[in-house]
């Protein structure tokens, strides 16, 4: 019985963790390239979930198909926010950047509250509802598909960063901005691309989350905090490390809920966060 519970929790946690990794990938892009800690990242996930809800409702699409519209939409929003807010803070101290992104966080949250009257929204059905059994272990279709899609997207982004010119420009800017500028990399465009892509990735995460969750204006905070922990655990520069960190954090969460107390899940997650910062400040898989 205990073994079965542990196995079930590990599976649930691993699938959940893959989505955490996808959410964190956007944050890692922005932080890794621009050195900007985007406190509004979790709220972009919330915005993406609302965008998913409205696209799915108005067009009668499944949540899984909505990134066809929400991905470019969030990319555009990201670009606009970069040029209007983020770019102006780049040459200022961390305090200004934190103030700007925290302000953006509250702006997004309050806007959602005004637009959607604080009422949580959920999609009634998805093609991936239901589950199947592997032995005595229940595999939820929505979580499995979300994990697989997250994995595929993470691999695709990894290929984009290593095999394409814009991706290499992002990595070069991340490694050394001055040298990459001398080599012809337009850092403003590269930053805008990174911020846009980081924001747009939340559209895919939002679509996946909406297959089994609801969205409310205040839920961005929890996604934001979780993505910081996953990023701190993984460190910068390794997409596979990001995926593994997401899986470890997700599993720690579900195992805590099963064997200790659901209320202690954040306690365990932040304990991991503190230990990693203490023992290995650059993260377990970080290359810088």
């Amino acid at each position, binding site marked *: 019985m205990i073994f079965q*519970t542990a196995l079930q929790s590990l599976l649930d946690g691993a699938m959940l963790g893959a989505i955490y990794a996808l959410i964190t990938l956007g944050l890692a892009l922005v932080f890794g390239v621009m050195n900007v800690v985007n406190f509004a990242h979790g709220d972009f996930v919330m915005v993406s979930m609302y965008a998913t809800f409205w696209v799915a409702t108005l067009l009668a699409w499944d949540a899984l198909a909505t990134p066809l519209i929400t991905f470019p939409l969030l990319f555009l929003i990201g670009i606009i926010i970069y040029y209007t807010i983020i770019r102006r803070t780049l040459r200022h101290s961390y305090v200004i950047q934190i103030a700007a992104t925290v302000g953006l966080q509250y702006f997004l949250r309050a806007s959602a509250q005004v637009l959607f*009257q604080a*009422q*949580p929204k959920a999609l009634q059905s998805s093609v991936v509802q239901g*589950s199947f059994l592997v032995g005595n272990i229940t595999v939820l279709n929505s979580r499995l598909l979300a994990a697989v899609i997250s994995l595929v997207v993470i691999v695709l982004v990894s290929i984009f960063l290593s095999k394409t010119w814009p991706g290499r420009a992002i990595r070069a800017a991340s490694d050394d901005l001055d040298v990459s500028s001398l080599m012809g990399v337009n850092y403003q465009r590269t930053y805008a691309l990174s911020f846009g892509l980081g924001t747009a990735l939340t559209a895919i995460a939002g679509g996946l989350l909406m297959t089994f*969750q*609801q969205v409310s204006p205040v*839920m961005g905070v929890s996604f934001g905090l979780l993505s910081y922990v996953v990023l701190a655990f993984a460190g910068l520069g390794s997409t596979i490390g990001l995926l593994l960190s997401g899986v470890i954090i997700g599993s720690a969460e*579900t195992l805590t809920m099963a064997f200790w107390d*659901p209320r202690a899940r954040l306690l365990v997650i932040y304990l991991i966060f503190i230990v990693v910062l203490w023992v290995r400040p650059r993260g377990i898989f970080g290359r810088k």
Partner: protein
Amino acid sequence: MSKKVVKTLAFVIVLGALLLNACAPAATPAPAVSTQIVQVEVTRVVAGTPQTIVVTAPPPEPVKVELPDKIIVGILEPLTGAHAVFGEEAKIGIEIAAKHINDEGGIKSMGGLPIELVTEDAGEDADSARLGAESIISKHHPVAILGLYISRMTAAASEVTDREKVILVADALVDSVTQSGRRYLFRPAPKASAHGATAVNFVVETAKAKGVTVSKVAIINEDSAFGRANTFGALNAAINNGLTTVYQKEYPYDITDASTIVNEIYASGADFVIQTPYFNDGIVFAKAFSDAKKIPMFIAGSGASGFTDPQSIEALGPVAEGYTNTYSYNPGKNTPQNKKFVDEFKTQTGHIPTEAAGMNYYGMWILKEALELSGQMFPDDPLNPENLRSAFLALDLTSGPAIETYPAEHIKFDGAGDNPDAFAVVLQVQNGEPKVVWPVADAEAEAIFPRADTTR
């Protein structure tokens, strides 16, 4: 009379008046009526011999405190943050009630004074609630406040309302809200523990009526004082009904994945589940039960938040079918006043009133009845906090608009501010609509039991 004597007398009178004024309690008007004759012994010396005479003064004229041209009532609800979904509904309920009261001539015992509402956001935590209470009182000086739905916020704000002697008609359900000795707090709705007990009693009685045996229960709640108080009532009711509690757990209300707990509940062999959700967690759990296809015979909500409210039904769609929850308000009550309220609420929002809206609608009417009574009992100073409190305690309602929208048939507050006769009804989602199914005497429809999609 010499000038010196006149000056001395004038000085004594002025000094006496000043002293009397200083001794009077601050901001408390003079007693309304006094019929006592005042007798004062005065000693004077005449030709070296002291003489005592008794001066009899006529009784003082009753001091009638001038009434304002409107009665200000505060709405202090969470209008932003995680609990805004409840506060917004509550505000609409209060506004409709105030409109109905004013349309019917205001407070008649005070010459038809109209109700004027003022609103303040209570935020989402105890500090913001306390600040909200201080702000609304200092800015508007309301005679009463309705709010704050969330119990921990109510506890914090009631410190301020009690200190400032402002009546608080509370819509928070945690038992302890009325157990901390607040003088000016009244709660018409049933306590949270009564909701928990109602949920269990409903399942046991319905199962018996349907010939289904239930013996094992799982009880879960979000980890606030509200969830805990509901569970306390449910646990006691489970013991009283001879049930075995095979699983019990608390979880954070912002839980994002409930599949682990759902698996555990099913593995525990529970026949049915009693859950106290807030709102989001109700959706997360209902989807997790459905997705995992591990559905017990019955899942009954407790405490009114989640499952059967219009937003949850809209969010869950077919998954909401068969879910129940306990309500402090009966939207199906077949009375003219209730129908009027439901119709107007539906016109404004597109859905029937939630518990938060219903509780505050009848809460406003109960306040109106107390104001009327205060006007009759204390015509010279009906808005004095002590007089209004006395009127609340003297209320004994068995008819009228408040009763027509109240789940029970009797409203009379005890010394703690609760109505011992309050009880909750049970709503069940049937064909996408919440229907009152228990108590049977008040039922709009027969309860569907066990769940049609149970996998047990």
